[in-house]
């Protein structure tokens, strides 16, 4: 009886887990599709001002209304999504490449290089990522390049740690020993044997890091340290619309929801990938 109950609870849990994974995939695919395809269908210039139709609520011509300078908010949200997501993806890719690269080599060569890299990583990890991003953005000033820097640097340590532990473990496997015994060059052993077998959990981390990156890009935009006006960016749109919350609440809710759903989507996708690669990542 107990067995039946527990197996059913397990099945239920797996089903729920699968539904959440499915939701994650759906959210990510949906949001990416909307920001990629949306601007092709809704062909309105997100930068065009129209001082006659300022601060309008939703109308047929402007489904989300207009902002304080009369710019179409739907166009701005669609283009802003491209900006926010693209900056996030580029930042995570930089962090992934640098972090996993350092971790991969650290775990493989060990010795003083490993000690050095890991101490730098420890120092970076001592700061909360958001605070570190803020400090970098404040020191370097606003702009796309500096936003990427501010978002990617704090994400490097986790990739480095994760890949190092993978690299340490896989280097001990017999197929790596065999590859060394054959006389393959260290770079070949590393890239053909260690990397392909250790990359799984890194993709999980990448998905979770994307959620954090969206939050940081939008956050920096919100406080004016990120992408600069008039370029559309979700966080910047949110802060512009916030002042007119009572006139046009949709203009706050839509970019806000876009940010939240993106973060949720990437986190659920990370869990889904974690199940796929059978790693305890995420939670």
């Amino acid at each position, binding site marked *: 009886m107990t067995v039946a109950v527990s197996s059913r609870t397990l099945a239920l849990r797996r089903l729920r887990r699968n539904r959440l994974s499915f939701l994650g995939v759906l959210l990510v695919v949906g949001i990416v599709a909307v920001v990629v395809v949306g601007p092709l269908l809704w062909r309105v210039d997100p930068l065009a001002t129209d001082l006659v139709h300022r601060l309008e609520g939703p109308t047929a011509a402007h489904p989300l209304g207009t902002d304080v300078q009369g710019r179409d908010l739907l166009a701005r949200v669609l283009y802003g999504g491209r900006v926010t997501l693209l900056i996030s993806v580029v930042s995570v890719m930089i962090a992934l490449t640098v972090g996993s690269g350092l971790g991969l080599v650290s775990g493989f060569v060990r010795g003083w290089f490993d000690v050095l890299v890991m101490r730098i990583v420890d120092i970076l990890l001592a700061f909360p990522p958001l605070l570190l991003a803020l400090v970098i953005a404040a020191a370097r000033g606003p702009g796309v390049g500096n936003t990427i820097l501010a978002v990617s640097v704090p994400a490097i340590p986790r990739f480095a740690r994760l890949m190092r532990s993978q690299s340490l473990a896989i280097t001990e496997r017999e197929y790596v020993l*065999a590859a060394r015994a*054959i*006389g393959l060059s260290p770079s070949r052993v590393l890239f*053909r044997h260690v990397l392909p077998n250790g990359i799984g959990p890194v993709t999980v981390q990448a998905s979770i890091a994307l959620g954090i990156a969206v939050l940081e890009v939008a956050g920096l935009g919100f406080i004016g340290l990120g992408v600069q006006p008039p370029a559309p960016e979700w966080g910047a749109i949110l802060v512009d619309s916030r002042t007119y919350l009572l006139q046009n609440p949709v203009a706050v809710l839509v970019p806000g929801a876009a940010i939240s759903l993106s973060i949720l989507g990437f986190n659920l996708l990370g869990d889904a990938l974690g199940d796929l690669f059978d790693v305890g990542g995420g939670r």
Partner: protein
Amino acid sequence: MTAAPLLKAEDLRVVFRVDDHEVRALDGVDIDVAPAEIHGVVGESGCGKTTLGRALLRLVPLRSGTVAIGGVDITALRGRSLRRARAQMQMIFQSPWSSLNPRMPVGRAIGEAARAHGRSRGRDVEVEVAELLELVGLDADVAARYPDAFSGGQRQRIAIARALAVRPRFIVADEAIASLDVSVGEQIVELLLELRERLGLAYLFISHDLSAVERLSERVTVMYLGTVVERTSTETLFRDPAHPYTVALLAAAPGRYPREVRRRYVLEGDPPSPIDPPPGCRFWPRCPVGPLHDPTRSVCRSVTPELVDLGGGHHVACHFPREVRLPDPAVR
């Protein structure tokens, strides 16, 4: 051994650091293997058999000692020149489940080895991979499959093909049949023998399966706690072992003697920790003729016995060799 040895290693010492302790995995081991010889290595787990194989291939750092293959000292080689030297010697691992990269098609793994030393390139590699697969008794068209498509025996054949791809003269077979079913292991043994006939390979056959070692090897080295305690021809070792540890090992092997006989030879205690080996002879705390049984034999506690020739190449490291004898073969 009158012929010049293919492989010769002297005074090998390998030390691993575990926490703050030093583990002497190999403590002054000499070994030599003649061309096309099969040299068996036996001993309990943890005695350093695996480390010996890896040390010969320079896969673990040596504290001291020398390794020479084909008369060339490879101890000091590093980087590219060490990689080149590796073409002469290869290894077959215990578990074919972990010795193949799960994310690489087997043909590519073999091809990578064939290409590693610049002897073949381009389409030649494909041809060579096909030949190697057939040499080890597999179909050439399995090259595109990943390791998970194969059984344990097939995987071990693939691992052998990969080792052969660099055209070695010497192969360390580290428990190469231990994780396989008996019948499959038997096929692998046959394959190893056949490859020796065809390619003139020499093997260091590391195993705890005494009957396989007896059947395959020309000579056998017995190891205990990181040292060699006895080395002689297989025939002599199994008929007239001189070291009390060897006697115990042979008597304890399943199927060789009736249980009543086996029981009389059972060793007391566990092998001591290689972190803190006993002084003098490493075997004295468990030895049936040692100082614990004859208090006048304090020499065992203080003086490490050298590996000496009793005559006819029968080397043993014991102060009182041939005191413990195997039971009469009649009771077998």
